[in-house]
């Protein structure tokens, strides 16, 4: 039976970690001391690169490499933005760190700032996280009183400020350039890349954007070394991952595991306690609502980034959503299409129009008003997936295409005009 490997969630649930004192008792802020006193910024970047840590927000970009993109000897201020906009449906891991171990995140942010030469970090937290924003604000104020934020941190001559910035309900602001325009006080429209944020980001200054879970892994990497961290997991996914298990399972939850030790089915069985009522699984979305759905007969593959990729999907943000045999897949495809339609920022025509078309067509199909050729039309719309500024349009396309591919018969059944014979057979006997 597979078990958790708790590194980031180590003390969560068993100890109170909200104050600096609590956190220090569990070894907290030791890594910051090491980073400020025993290591150069280059050595911190090197250690993180060696750890193999990759972004945990969904895209999986190597963190050490991202940090190394900050131009040397830059005269403008450098900014770090922590992406706490956790909005990908199914994803609920970052808030656990924010609400239950805020100093872990602050410590990771401070070390990251040291590494990239930043003296100002912003935590962009989604507006709906009232509690999380308050907890972070209190943690920051306490850390400042303790000399961990502000001028001359730990007497090591390093200055750094951290500010919390609440969003106001827009999925698109989880996209890194949308986050930046939002933080600049504009409508959260994503920007074209290049220039990449590391060169011209917030206020046109070099900026690094990292996810909460990513930054929270930094302290342990600095304390125990990149090689120690890299020894966990697989080549393409080192360390531990927080997986959010939801939907039709008996024990949903956020579980910290090392990838490579179990199959997807075993994960759902051992951690999720199986499906309620002993029902069969129909499909599983392995990495947040944007990622292509897998069928039940694809679940016996190892739960790794590599194997899920081979199966045509992605571990994305680590959000696994289980759907049992009673689920109407057309209904779910429509539900997700409505989400992306609502969240499209409207800048790019393919996304603004395409998400709307998806909803109109799927709604008709769901209501029994679909026309022959609708599936082909949907697939045709999908072909424009890479024609927008940001990945939201692709994120809207992938589920539609995957639901059509994996459960095509359910769509066909709703579109197929019922033959006269079938009508006659189902007519009540008189």
């Amino acid at each position, binding site marked *: 039976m597979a078990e958790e490997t708790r590194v980031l969630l180590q003390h969560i649930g068993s100890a109170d970690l909200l104050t600096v004192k609590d956190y220090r008792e569990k070894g907290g802020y030791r890594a910051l001391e090491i980073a400020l006193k025993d290591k150069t910024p280059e050595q911190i970047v090197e250690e993180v690169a060696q750890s193999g840590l990759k972004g945990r927000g969904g895209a999986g970009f190597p963190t050490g490499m991202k940090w190394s993109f900050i131009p040397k000897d830059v005269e403008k*201020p450098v900014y770090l933005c922590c992406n706490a906009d*956790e*909005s*990908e*449906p*199914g*994803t*609920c891991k*970052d*808030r656990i760190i924010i609400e239950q171990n805020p100093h872990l995140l602050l410590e990771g942010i401070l070390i990251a700032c040291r590494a990239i030469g930043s003296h*100002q970090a912003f935590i962009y937290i*989604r*507006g*709906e*996280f*009232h*509690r999380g924003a308050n907890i972070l604000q209190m943690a920051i104020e306490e850390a400042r009183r303790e000399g961990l934020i502000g001028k001359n941190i730990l007497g090591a001559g390093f200055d750094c400020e951290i*500010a919390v*910035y*609440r*969003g*106001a*309900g*827009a*999925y698109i602001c989880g996209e890194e350039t949308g986050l930046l325009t*939002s*933080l*600049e*006080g*504009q*409508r*959260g429209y994503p920007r074209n890349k290049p220039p990449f944020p590391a060169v011209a980001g917030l*206020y046109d200054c070099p900026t690094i954007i990292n996810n909460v879970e990513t930054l929270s892994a930094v302290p342990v990497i600095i304390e125990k070394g990149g090689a120690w961290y890299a020894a966990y997991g697989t080549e393409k996914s080192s360390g531990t991952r927080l997986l*959010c*298990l*939801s*939907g*039709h399972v008996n024990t*949903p*939850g*956020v579980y910290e595991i090392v990838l490579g030790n179990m199959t997807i089915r075993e994960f759902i069985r051992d951690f999720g306690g199986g499906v309620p009522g002993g029902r069969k699984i129909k499909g599983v*979305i392995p990495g947040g*609502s944007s990622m292509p759905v897998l069928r039940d007969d694809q679940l016996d593959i190892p739960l790794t980034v590599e194997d899920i990729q081979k199966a045509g999907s992605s571990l994305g943000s680590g*959000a696994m*959503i289980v*759907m049992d045999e009673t*689920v109407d897949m057309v209904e*779910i495809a429509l*539900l*997700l299409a409505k*989400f992306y339609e*609502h*969240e499209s*920022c409207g800048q790019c025509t393919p996304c603004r129009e395409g998400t709307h078309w998806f909803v109109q067509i799927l709604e008709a199909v769901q209501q029994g008003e679909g026309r022959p050729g609708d599936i082909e039309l949907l697939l045709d719309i999908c072909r424009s997936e890479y024609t927008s500024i940001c990945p939201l349009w692709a994120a809207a396309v992938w589920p539609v295409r995957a639901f059509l591919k994996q459960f095509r018969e359910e769509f066909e059944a709703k579109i197929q005009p019922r033959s006269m014979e079938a009508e006659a057979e189902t007519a009540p006997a008189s």
Partner: protein
Amino acid sequence: MPETLHNQETRKIRDQQPGKIDEILRRFPQKKSASIPLLYLAWDIYGYISPEAMIEVAEILDVSPAYIQGIVSFYTMFPLKMTGNYHIEVCANISCHLTGAQEVLKTLENRLGIHCGERTGDGRFSLQAVECLAGCSSAPCMQINGKEYTHLTPEKVIEIIDSLD
């Protein structure tokens, strides 16, 4: 900008919370970044994002009211009309949908006698279906004035509503 909206009606934040405005402006290297934080403050003071609230935020930031309206219309959380004393936001996205969000919504609509997006006649409750609240592993979930309620069932929802003053 209508002349009648000037001065008396659009000075509430500056009259009531001048210190808070300064504190917010100090956080950012550029003034415009204060738009969303000031709108939150305006929401608090005006009760919702009224035209007057938008005009005042625009005046504080030296931008046009239209610019602020552009921000407000982009972000779904800012209410353009009064919400209830208890503002209920029910997640209707995938994980909650799979675990009974529709029953939760129906129960609330029946109990309160309003539809999603409406406010009760006495002003006590308003109801809204919202996108994923990141409570997926304790679905279905909702928030009332920002406080989270999880593992909802129709029975539990009624208990929660009845327990509010």
